[in-house]
């Protein structure tokens, strides 16, 4: 026991130094945050409004997700999203291959359309066009016949065997109802080597399409331009790479002299016809232009789809969250209000129960709060941490964990004093016992937070992160603030003599019989 007492007498000077060091570190980090210019928290979309979309790669036949393909898809989607021109848009991939897209600001369905429509882009020759409803289906046989005669007269290689209008295709075409919303979803993975039937993306017309001749990945560049010289309005310019140039050249050479609609080249994205421009001439140069009655938005969207449409993998939309800025600020205010009320209740309770010692827990909570806030600021800069509603909830819940460390210590301290030790000694012996309990308990909390983080999906991940972070902060606060602070206070007569309201008075500790031990 003598070892402990000598240790205790050495402590106060050291405690003062620890407190001063903590203050210096806090000030340094505050200065760092201000110097970096982050005085504002990075808020998640659920707190400031915006759209977030989670996409999962469609894997054929239970195969594995190709990491490289996912990264490539992320890059492509990022370019697409950036074309919207919204600052701070983010596209990231998760460990399981999921891709998360978040675009702040007003929730608009355009983000969903742009990101959701992500599949293979192909160029296919149009074999037949019809109106969406069943009425026009009867005329298809004649159309097919015309195709045959037309083909023979041109004597082109494809013409000797009219590409694909078989009985099966004819039936499929007849049965396809493009007035149904369900048939405008896209997402079907079409076989590039087969002739297919498809609906239009924009209206209710339907098509029979020849096997694909040019792949979207063979498009090297596409842009929307305003044609001022010829007065064509908005149009889309596109360029092909080497293989694309020769494939597109072959295709255009063959179809340009055919009768309508076989002289059209359909641009098929995700199984839907985005556009089916007529080919006016054989294009062997590798650059083409698509003109029509485009608005700027239509032209830009088409250019984007041509440029970025060829994703290396098909994606399905898993989750869409559209939060308006109004709801966002409501949630932020509710979160902050809940935190404030929670904090006040905890402070009131600890003052009521622990009296003077309660001041220590108030001080510790304030220090813990500042460290947590600073970490949010700095982590926002360093690892892109954003505070979400779930994150705020995690921080509020952790008030309980932080306060519990003081309770464990205070109860130990009071036990030691009840056993007849002087406060100075009790501060040390109580700490040695409480320390182990706090470490074990916080360690269990950290395990929980880490596992929650790895197994949580989407938004609730923020909860696990802040819970873990604040548990860690709790350890720092207990070791470098609470304990040294109590040591310093144990030198103050008010506490050392166990006056009323100090939280260590004989009355509140229940030391009633042996007066010799009471007067510490």
């Amino acid at each position: 026991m003598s070892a402990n007492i000598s240790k205790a007498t050495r402590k106060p000077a050291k405690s003062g130094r620890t407190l001063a060091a903590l203050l210096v570190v806090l000030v340094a980090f505050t200065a760092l945050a201000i110097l970096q210019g982050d005085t504002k928290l990075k808020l998640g979309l659920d707190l400031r409004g915006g759209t977030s979309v989670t996409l999962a790669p469609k894997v054929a036949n239970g195969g594995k997700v190709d990491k490289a393909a996912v990264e490539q898809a992320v890059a492509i989607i990022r370019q697409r999203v950036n074309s919207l021109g919204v600052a701070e848009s983010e596209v990231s991939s998760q460990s399981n291959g999921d891709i998360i897209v978040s675009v702040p600001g007003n929730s608009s369905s355009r983000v969903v359309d742009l990101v959701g429509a992500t599949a293979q882009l192909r160029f296919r020759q149009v074999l037949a066009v019809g109106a969406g409803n069943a009425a026009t289906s009867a005329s298809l046989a004649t159309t097919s016949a015309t195709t045959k005669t037309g083909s023979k007269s041109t004597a082109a290689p494809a013409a000797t065997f009219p590409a694909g209008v078989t009985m099966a295709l004819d039936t499929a075409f007849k049965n396809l109802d493009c007035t149904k919303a369900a048939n405008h979803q896209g997402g079907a993975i079409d076989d590039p080597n087969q002739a297919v039937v498809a609906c239009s993306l924009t209206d209710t017309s339907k098509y029979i399409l020849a096997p694909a001749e040019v792949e979207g990945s063979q498009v090297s560049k596409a842009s929307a331009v305003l044609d001022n010289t010829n007065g064509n309005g908005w149009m889309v310019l596109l360029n092909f790479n080497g293989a694309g140039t020769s494939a597109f050249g072959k295709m255009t050479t063959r179809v340009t002299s055919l009768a309508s609609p076989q002289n059209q080249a359909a641009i098929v994205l995700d199984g839907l016809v985005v556009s089916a421009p007529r080919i006016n001439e054989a294009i062997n140069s590798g650059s083409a232009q698509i003109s029509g009655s485009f608005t700027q938005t239509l032209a830009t969207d088409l250019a984007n789809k041509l440029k970025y449409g060829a994703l290396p993998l098909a994606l399905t939309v898993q989750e869409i969250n559209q939060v308006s800025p109004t709801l966002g600020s409501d949630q932020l205010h509710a979160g902050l209000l809940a935190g404030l009320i929670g904090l006040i209740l905890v402070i009131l309770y600890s003052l009521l129960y622990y009296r003077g010692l309660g001041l220590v827990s108030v001080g510790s909570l304030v220090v813990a709060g500042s460290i947590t806030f600073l970490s949010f600021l700095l982590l926002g800069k360093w690892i892109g941490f954003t505070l979400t509603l779930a994150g705020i909830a995690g921080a509020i819940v952790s008030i309980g964990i932080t306060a519990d460390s003081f309770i464990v210590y205070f109860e130990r301290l009071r036990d030691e004093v009840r056993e007849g030790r002087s406060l100075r000694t009790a501060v040390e012996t109580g700490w040695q016992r409480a320390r182990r309990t706090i470490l074990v308990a916080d360690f269990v909390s950290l395990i929980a937070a880490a596992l929650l983080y790895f197994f949580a999906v989407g938004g609730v991940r923020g909860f696990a992160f802040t819970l873990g972070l604040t548990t860690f902060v709790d350890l720092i606060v207990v070791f470098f603030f609470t304990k040294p602070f109590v040591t310093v206070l144990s030198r103050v007569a008010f506490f050392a003599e166990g006056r009323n309201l100090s939280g260590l008075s004989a009355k509140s500790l229940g030391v009633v019989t042996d007066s010799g031990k009471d007067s510490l």
Partner: protein
Amino acid sequence: MALSGIGGRLYRGETSINFIAKRRRWFGISGLLIIISAVALGTQGLKLGIEFKGGSVLTVQAPTVSVAQGQAALKSAGVTTESIVQKIGTSKLRLQTTDLPQSTISAARTALASTFNVDPANIDIQTVGPSWGKEITHKALYGLFGFLIVVMLYLAMAFEPKMALSAIVAVIHDVFITVGIYALVGFDVTPATVIGFLTILGYSLYDTVVVFDKVRENTNGITSTARQTYSQAANLALNQTLVRSFNTSLIALLPVASILFVGAGLLGAGTLKDLSLALFIGLATGTYSSIFIATPLLATLREREPAMQALAKRVSTRGGVIETPVDKNTAGVVTSTHSKESHERGPRNQPKRKPRRR
């Protein structure tokens, strides 16, 4: 002072609650609750949120809203499947649909915007694909088992294997009862609920860890003396940490309650409410189990050891009164069953520890 009544007497040792001796009663109550939970889960099942089954939730905020208007708007947009329309507060309407194509959702948004005369951009939409839920469920289950295994290993290393076993049994007990309450009352289960629920497992263990730490301290070298049986020492530890357990639970509950009331009151259904409701229920069962299940179970397991039985025999021959589980006369609150004066049972009057380690 908030605890001047029972709490004050507890730590002064004037009152000692004999939790361990009544263990059969607690085990019985918990067994019954678990059976009720299993029946509720089997017959009613859990009410899963859209995250688990796919679908959309649209939220409209307008000066005046009514459920009928919302239903009419959905109908006009071509939503024919079953949908749930709820009014939150006076100015918010929450419309939940099944898994529908994106175009139908867009149509519903437009219809709602014109019905309530608001900007379509101010309608909040959450859409979840049907396969999303499977992934969430799998992850939650992996998380649960991973957590149980890691924590059990850690506790077995940090404490004793029997403590680890008792702690885990208490946690599984909490899982059952919380799930049972959700099935019985029909609260919505969302990913936020699952996360809140997993957090509770951490809390429950945290509480148990603190009690066990004291049990270990009290029973350290207990076999070399003949003052107390293992059960008596464990019960003393429970009583000594009771004030802390109570304070901890209350202080943990205060912020959670404030999230629950602010979340449910201001925002209605959502992350805050789901998370804090799970925490609130779990916290209550967690506190119960660490006092009434974990420690009594530990005592039962340890009392079976030959060394502890020998100790119990020595204690009884020395003349002390052993509190055994078969002692039916022992009341819940023991005031004077001991030959000594009751207030001498407080921490101050316990056998003085040997000189401290180190």
